[in-house]
């Protein structure tokens, strides 16, 4: 199978101009994500991470530069926005449809795109849900599930579409530490089983190192890539990695880079308030 899902971000820029207030969210962001690479982007709050993800997903326009995947243009100024099943997003607050059952949520993509028959989709959905430890919940509504269960269902909903790239927008932010570590391990299991290109946003350093092949640090606004650090910890990884020497070394390096930006962001915030 040809490797697909190679993401190329070149000089991406985004200027918001609501009510005449000029805000540069992204400035000359360039990043290459290889096929089947798990790439995590970390940065202080408000640095434009979500703006970048929205541009890749086709939710929001760029004002400069371009983003392409496998040579096909995804975003550039003036290009029509086109979200699609080749780029699936797992949202920050979760976006399972509350009015539909878990099974409907999980199978709606392939059924809509007519890639699977209903029985096939249901079977595939059940199989993937079971792989992340979810049984007998297919007839439940999302509101009846715990936070950790909802996040796993949403990841499965995304995977069901066999996307070329998975986009995660701080998906585990609202979870408690214990649930978070379990869901992270499930995500890694899925990734190791069937690698895909992943673009994952977070501001949790440990999460970034635990999951990533490479971690890109973004600067505070205007957001740009400050540094890219390769995480050379072998897979499969489990929670014991978190206390290994190599993990701590990378964490120290990453921590230094991000701390500078966090401080700048904080000071900028103080200035805006003053």
């Amino acid at each position, binding site marked *: 199978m040809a490797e697909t899902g190679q993401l190329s971000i070149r000089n991406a820029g985004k200027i918001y101009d609501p009510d005449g207030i000029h805000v540069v969210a992204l400035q000359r962001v360039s990043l290459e994500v290889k096929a089947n690479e798990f790439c995590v982007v970390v940065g202080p709050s408000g640095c434009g991470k979500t703006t970048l993800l929205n541009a890749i997903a086709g*939710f929001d326009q760029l004002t400069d530069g371009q983003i392409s995947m496998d040579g096909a243009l995804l975003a550039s100024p003036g290009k029509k926005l086109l979200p699609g099943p080749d780029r699936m997003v797992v*949202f920050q607050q979760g976006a399972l449809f509350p009015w539909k059952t878990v099974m409907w949520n999980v199978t709606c*993509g392939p059924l809509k795109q007519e890639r699977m028959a209903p029985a096939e989709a249901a079977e595939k959905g059940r199989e993937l849900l079971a792989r992340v430890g979810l*049984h007998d919940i297919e007839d439940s509504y999302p*509101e*009846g599930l715990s936070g950790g269960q909802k996040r796993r269902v949403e990841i499965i909903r995304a995977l069901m579409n066999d996307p070329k790239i998975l986009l995660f927008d701080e998906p585990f932010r609202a979870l408690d530490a214990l649930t978070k570590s379990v869901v992270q391990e499930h995500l890694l299991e899925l990734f190791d089983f069937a690698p895909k290109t992943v673009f994952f946003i977070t501001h949790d350093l440990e999460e970034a190192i635990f999951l990533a092949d490479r971690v890109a640090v973004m600067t505070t606004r205007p957001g740009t890539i400050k540094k890219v650090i390769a995480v050379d910890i072998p897979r499969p990884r489990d929670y014991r990695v978190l206390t290994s020497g190599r993990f701590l070394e990378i964490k120290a390096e990453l921590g230094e880079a991000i701390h500078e930006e966090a401080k700048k962001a904080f000071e900028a915030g103080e200035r805006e308030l003053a």
Partner: protein
Amino acid sequence: MSNHVTGNDAAYKLRIARQLTVSYRVGRWFRGLWSLNLLLGVISLSTVTFLWEFAAPLGIPGLKNVPAPTTVIAAATDLLVAPQYWTGWGLSFQRIVTGFIVAQMIGIPLGLIMAMHRFSFGTIFPIIEILRPIPPVAWIPISIVFWPAREQSVIFIVFLGAFWIVLLNTIGGASQIDRKYKRAALSLGSTPRDLFWKIILPATMPSIITGMAVGMGISWEMVVAAEMIAGNTGLGYLLWQSFEIGAIAQVIVCMISIGIAGYFSSALIRTLGGFATPWRRLH
């Protein structure tokens, strides 16, 4: 999350088996019925009825003109066998149903259109904002002049009572949908048509149902007022006619009847609403 039975397996099975027996379930149902709230409700209702019954001889001014519960019950037994009473129920219900349904048929689609298209919102909303604060009762004279028959003018007043609230609730619900749902749906391959039927409509449904439940209450207020002024049949008319001939006990019977009718109409809307939004029934 887990299917495992923790603790003593045999004891657990025994507990489950006991919970499945008829006597256990009947017992639990009976205990549920005799809850503290029911007891308190019965006590407060009987206290009020008791005070009402024996207040007249105490000489509280005004209250001596109000018939006591026993007189009301006597009047009720007479009225409940009168055909006029039951045709009154039927006609009032018919007006409620007609006015209410027309209000939903226009209000819900109009609200959805206004929430989805800025142009239609900008055009229609100013008209609504001027007409809405006018109480439906104030429309009665114009309604009588406008509509060829009294029946239509009463239904129109009922319509107005239910219309504004469902319209505003639909607009509010549909314009507050989190855009993440639309984005997720677009990523999953939705067409604009799917977006409407699978996202916008179900997401707005809870607001629509709230609007319907409140609107049903206002509809009953409006049908009574309109029948008093413009009608010559129905529960509202019967109430006013009873007052005119000085049958005050009969007035109270009509009042209680209208209360019961309103209660059952709202309960019906709540039940139907529950079926339309099964995902909210857990809470």
